[in-house]
C-alpha cells in the first residue's frame, strides 16, 4: 500500500515531463525531498504498528468473548421481569398452607362522563352485569361535570369480561391491589386487617407489616383452620343457647406453646372493615382481661403443693365462711365441713383455697404469679396483647381473693399458657401464633416441679370424673380440667347476674398434648341447665364438644378409661384424715 501510494505520487510529480522514462520501484531521491519522504515512511511505519497492535487487541478480545468465554448468548434472557407480582404484599397461611390472606390485582371501573355518548343506555347495560348497583345510581354518577368518576371498585375477572363485551365507550379500567381474606371471619382476630392503603392495622397484618410488605415468603401461622372452625362453631352454639354476649376459645399445644386455634366472638369479616362494630373488633382471647374465677385454683393448688407447705393428703376446715375486713368468703358448692386438699379442688371450695394460699403467704403468691407470667403483658405476636390488672399494694385480702380467681385480671390466653405449664411437667413456654419447625421445642423456664405437675394432672382429672367438670368428660379421651364462674365487676361491686363462665381442660390428661379453653361471657341459664349458667353447665360441654371433634383429627386414639395402666397414672393414692374426727372419707378410689 505504502509503496503504491509513493509511486503514484512520484508519477504525478513527474508527469509533466514526457521524456523521462517510467519510474522504477527504486527511485533515487536527493536532498531535502529525500529526507521528507524518509520521515514520512518512518511515521507511517509507526502508525501502522500502532494500528496493528490495536486491531490485534480487538481480534484477541473478539475471540475471547465469542469463543473462549460463553460461546453463545446467555440462555435466560430476561425472565426476571415476570416476577413483578411477587413484590406485592405476601400471603398469610395457616399451618397446613391454607390461605388466610392474599393480595389480588383487581380491575376497577371508572368513567369519563364527557366521553359517554348515551348515559341512559350505558347505565341500562351496566346494571345488567353489575349486581348491587342500580341504573339510577349509574345515571346519577354520569351526570357530573368531572372527567373522572368511579363506577365500581374491585371487580371480579368475570365482571370485567362482561363489561368489555358490552363495549360501551367512555368506560375504562384501573388496576388496583386488594387484600382478600378468603376465610371471612374464621380467624379475623388473629390475622387482622389492612386499611385502604394496604397498611396492616390489626393482628398479624399489623405486627408483621414490614415482613409482609417486603413480599417474600408467606407468613405461616400456627393456627389450624379446621380446628379454628370447630372451636368457633362450638362456641357459637353455646352462645346462642345461653344468649351470651360474647365468647372466647383457645386450643394450645401443651408441648411447644403453639396456638392451634384462637377464637373471639362476636367476630367480623375482615373483607368489610368500613363500618366495624367495636365490640366485634375487640379480641376477648388475648386483649380482654377478666377475673377468671375458680380456674385460678389450678395455680393456687400448684403453688401451695409446690411450696411444700401444703401436702396432698392434708386438709382444711371449710365449715365456716371467712370474714375479713368488710368481705365474707363463702363457698358456692358449700359442703360446710372439713375438706381434704383434693376435695377443695374437686368441689371448688373458696374457703379451702383461701386457707391454702394463707399457708404460702403474700410474698410467695406474688412471686409465683409473677413467675408464671400472670403479672406481665402477654408475650404474643399480635399487638392486641392484654396487660393484667394486679392489686397494688398486694394485701392479705388480695391474697385470699386471688386464691380463687378474684382481684387479679388476666386474659384467657394468660390462663391457657399458665395451665399448660402446670400440666406439661412444669415448664412454662412462650405461646406463639407462628408455626414452629416440627420437633423444635423452645427452651422454657421450670416453674413447678415434675412431681407437682403430676399431682395437678390427677387433681384436674378428679374434677372431670367426680367434681364440677363432669360435663367436659369426652369419653375415651381422658379430659382433665377446672371450671370457673366469676361474677363480673359492675361499678363498685360484683354483678350476680353478669358472669363469665369458663372451663380450661387438658387432654389426654395422663400425657397432656392439648389445652382447651372455653369462656362464655354473660350466659343466661335455661331449662336444660335448671337455670344454671356456671362454667360446669355452660363452658364444660363446649370443651367436650371440641375435644370429641378434634381428637380423631389429631390422631389421638380413644382409650379405655378404666384400664389398669390408665388408672395407675390418674389415681390419687391418699387417705385423707380429718383431724377433728377419726376415720373420715376415703378418697383412694381415684
Amino acid at each position, binding site marked *: 500500500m505504502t509503496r503504491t501510494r509513493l509511486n503514484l505520487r512520484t508519477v504525478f510529480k513527474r508527469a509533466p515531463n514526457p521524456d523521462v522514462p517510467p519510474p522504477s520501484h527504486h527511485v533515487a531521491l536527493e536532498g531535502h525531498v529525500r529526507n521528507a519522504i524518509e520521515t514520512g515512511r518512518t511515521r507511517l511505519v509507526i502508525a501502522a504498528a500502532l494500528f496493528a497492535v490495536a486491531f490485534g487487541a480487538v481480534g484477541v478480545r473478539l475471540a475471547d468473548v465469542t469463543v473462549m468465554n460463553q460461546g453463545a448468548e446467555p440462555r435466560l434472557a430476561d425472565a426476571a421481569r415476570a416476577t413483578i407480582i411477587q413484590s406485592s404484599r405476601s400471603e398469610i397461611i395457616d399451618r397446613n398452607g391454607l390461605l388466610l390472606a392474599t393480595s389480588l390485582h383487581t380491575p376497577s371501573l371508572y368513567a369519563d362522563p364527557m366521553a359517554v355518548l348515551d348515559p341512559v343506555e350505558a347505565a341500562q347495560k351496566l346494571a345488567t352485569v353489575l349486581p348491587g348497583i342500580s341504573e339510577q345510581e349509574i345515571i346519577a354518577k354520569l351526570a357530573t361535570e368531572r372527567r373522572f368518576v368511579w363506577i365500581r371498585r374491585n371487580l371480579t375477572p368475570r365482571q370485567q369480561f362482561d363489561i368489555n363485551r358490552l363495549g360501551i365507550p367512555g368506560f375504562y379500567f384501573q388496576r388496583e391491589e386488594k387484600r382478600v381474606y378468603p376465610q371471612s371471619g374464621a380467624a379475623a382476630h388473629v390475622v387482622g386487617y389492612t386499611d385502604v392503603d394496604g397498611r396492616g392495622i390489626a393482628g398479624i397484618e399489623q405486627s408483621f407489616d414490614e415482613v409482609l410488605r417486603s413480599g417474600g415468603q408467606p407468613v405461616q401461622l400456627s393456627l389450624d383452620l379446621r380446628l379454628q372452625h370447630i372451636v368457633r362453631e362450638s362456641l357459637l352454639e353455646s352462645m346462642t343457647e345461653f344468649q351470651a354476649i360474647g365468647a372466647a376459645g383457645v386450643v394450645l399445644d401443651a408441648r411447644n406453646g403453639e396456638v392451634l386455634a384462637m377464637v373471639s366472638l362476636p367476630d367480623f369479616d375482615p373483607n368489610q372493615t368500613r363500618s366495624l362494630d367495636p365490640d366485634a373488633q375487640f379480641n376477648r382471647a388475648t386483649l380482654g382481661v377478666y377475673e377468671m374465677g375458680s380456674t385460678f385454683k389450678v395455680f393456687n393448688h400448684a403453688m401451695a403443693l409446690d411450696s411444700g407447705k401444703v401436702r396432698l393428703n392434708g386438709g382444711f376446715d371449710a365449715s365456716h365462711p371467712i370474714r375479713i375486713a368488710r368481705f365474707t368468703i363463702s363457698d358456692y358448692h358449700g359442703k360446710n365441713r372439713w375438706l381434704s386438699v383434693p376435695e377443695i379442688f374437686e368441689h371448688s371450695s373458696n374457703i379451702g383455697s383461701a386457707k391454702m394460699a394463707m399457708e404460702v403467704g403474700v410474698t410467695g403468691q406474688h412471686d409465683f404469679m409473677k413467675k408464671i407470667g400472670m403479672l406481665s403483658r402477654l408475650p404474643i405476636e399480635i399487638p392486641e396483647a392484654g396487660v393484667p390488672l394486679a392489686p397494688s399494694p398486694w394485701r392479705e385480702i388480695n391474697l385470699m381473693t386471688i386464691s380463687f380467681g378474684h382481684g387479679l385480671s388476666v386474659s384467657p390466653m394468660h390462663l391457657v399458657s399458665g395451665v399448660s405449664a402446670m400440666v406439661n411437667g412444669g415448664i412454662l413456654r412462650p405461646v406463639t401464633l407462628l408455626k414452629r419447625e416440627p420437633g423444635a421445642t423452645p427452651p422454657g423456664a421450670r416453674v413447678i416441679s415434675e412431681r407437682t405437675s403430676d399431682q395437678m394432672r390427677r387433681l384436674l382429672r378428679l374434677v372431670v370424673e367426680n367434681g364440677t367438670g363432669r360435663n367436659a368428660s369426652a369419653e*375415651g379421651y381422658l379430659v382433665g380440667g377446672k371450671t370457673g364462674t366469676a361474677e363480673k365487676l359492675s361499678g363498685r361491686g360484683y354483678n350476680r347476674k353478669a358472669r363469665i363462665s369458663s372451663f380450661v381442660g387438658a387432654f389426654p390428661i395422663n400425657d397432656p398434648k392439648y389445652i382447651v379453653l372455653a369462656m362464655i361471657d354473660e350466659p343466661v341459664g335455661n331449662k336444660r341447665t335448671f337455670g344454671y349458667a356456671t362454667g360446669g353447665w355452660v363452658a364444660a360441654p363446649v370443651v367436650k364438644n371440641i375435644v370429641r371433634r378434634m381428637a380423631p383429627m389429631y390422631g389421638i*386414639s*380413644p382409650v379405655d378409661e378404666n384400664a389398669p395402666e390408665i388408672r395407675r397414672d390418674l389415681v390419687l393414692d391418699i387417705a385423707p384424715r380429718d383431724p377433728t374426727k377419726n376415720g373420715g372419707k376415703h378418697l383412694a378410689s381415684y
Partner: protein
Amino acid sequence: MRQTFLLWIFLIGGAGVALFLLKYEVQEREEQLARLNSQIIRDQEAIQILRAEWSYLNRPDRLADLARRYLDLEPVTAKVLAASVSALPDPIPVITPDGLPVPPVARSNPLIAAPMEKPQAILATSRRLSE
C-alpha cells in the same frame, strides 16, 4: 486488484444484510419475550385469583354445610374408633360346607408387612454397576 475490491464489496454487503436480518430477528424475539412475560404475569395473577377462590370455596363451614346436605356422614365418635388391631374382638369362626368349624388362623400383626426381598437379578446388576 479488482477481485480483491469485489470481494470486499461482497463481504461488506453480506455483513450488512446479515446485520439487518439479525436486528429484525432480535427485535422480534424481544417482542416475543415481552409478550411471554406479560402472559406469565397474567397467568400468575389468574393463579392467584383461582387460589383465593379455591380457598374461599374450601371454607370449613361451607364444606360442613355441603357434607350435611349431600353426604350421609356424621362426626366420628370414640366408640367407632379402635386404638389398635388387638382391640378388635376375635373373628367369628367360619363354618365349612360340611359343617365343621375351620380352626382360627393364628393372628399376627397385619399392619407390618414382611420386608420384600430383592430379586437376585437386580442384585447382580447393581453389583456389576458398582464394580
